[in-house]
């Protein structure tokens, strides 16, 4: 991760996201196609709903004939963590133009958020449109292209998971966790390491009784709250 906030750095630093989106978005295209989505509908799904978890919800709940309001509710809850990410990353941008802020926020995902927060560790916590937009647009284009490829080629690939590409996103989060630990100076490193351990326990226990696609949101809310308490009591 460089200290530069220019478009070239953005394009370069987003490559891992672009590659890792290929696998998951291709898989979404395949799954949508096997659930009766035409390539046109897959294209519209990718264009309008830039959130893999929500796309899975839409495909799954439409297939099970859920009422439309239930799908809207699930879409909101599954993706509600993006509200926290949006609140967290926004103060790092000092961009005044409304349209630029809307363009940037529209391309915020788990991954572009994590990349931006890591980047902020190297730039004195400052982020710019010039860096973020070139970093955030290619993953969106990859998502559209890969899901379309999945929709068109899916019938020829019996089990896309076999390729191992689905692990790319997990690998990226492993890297991002490590980079966050080694570079973030706003929080004590020991406290951050303790938080990682706490999150592990929360995820394990939470999986017993909280549906997986809601768990991230619950763990984030409870985990951050506990983090604030720990910081005040021990650090």
């Amino acid at each position, binding site marked *: 991760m460089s200290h530069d906030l220019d478009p070239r750095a953005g394009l370069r630093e987003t490559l891992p996201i672009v590659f890792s989106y290929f*696998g998951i978005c291709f898989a979404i295209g395949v799954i949508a196609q096997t659930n009766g*989505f035409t390539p046109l509908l897959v294209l519209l799904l990718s264009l309008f709903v*830039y959130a893999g978890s929500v796309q899975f919800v839409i495909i799954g709940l439409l297939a099970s004939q859920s009422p439309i309001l239930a*799908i809207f509710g699930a879409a909101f809850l599954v993706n509600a963590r993006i509200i926290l990410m949006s609140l967290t990353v926004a103060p790092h941008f000092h961009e005044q133009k409304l349209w630029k802020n809307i363009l940037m926020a529209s391309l915020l995902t788990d991954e572009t958020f994590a990349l931006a927060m890591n980047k902020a560790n190297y730039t004195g916590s400052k982020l710019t449109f010039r860096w973020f937009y070139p970093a955030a647009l290619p993953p969106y284009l990859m998502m559209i292209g890969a899901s379309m490829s999945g929709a068109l080629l899916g019938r020829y690939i019996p089990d896309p998971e076999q390729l191992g590409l689905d*692990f790319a996103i997990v*690998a990226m989060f492993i890297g991002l966790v*490590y*980079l*966050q630990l080694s570079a973030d100076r706003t929080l004590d490193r020991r406290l951050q390491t303790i938080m990682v351990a706490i999150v592990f326990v929360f995820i394990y226990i939470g999986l017993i009784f909280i549906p997986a696609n809601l768990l991230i949101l619950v763990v984030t809310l409870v985990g951050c709250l506990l983090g604030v308490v720990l910081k005040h009591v021990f650090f």
Partner: protein
Amino acid sequence: MSSFEYTLVTIIGCGLITWLSRVLPFILLKKFTLSDRVLEFLSFVPIVIMSALWFSNLFTQDLGHLPRLNLENFLASVPTLISAIISKNLLVIVAVGIVSLAVIRVILA
């Protein structure tokens, strides 16, 4: 409504919900500032969310029962983490991750 139109309405509705969830907080913060308490809470969001997204992939859910270990992802995480420590380069980490999982699937198969 045809099934195409029904799906389209669902997509557009969900698209609007996800879009507003990212855009509204972002632009509201141009008008308002958050209290120190809230900012402190939010300072934990990156590390908590990133590790939650990792760990949730290490288990398979079985509601009402203990989660089962996803052995493939668990084992593949080890070389991936080592590559993170050595390289500090996301592209290398992602590549090592994909290759690790593929190799582990071959060994376990």
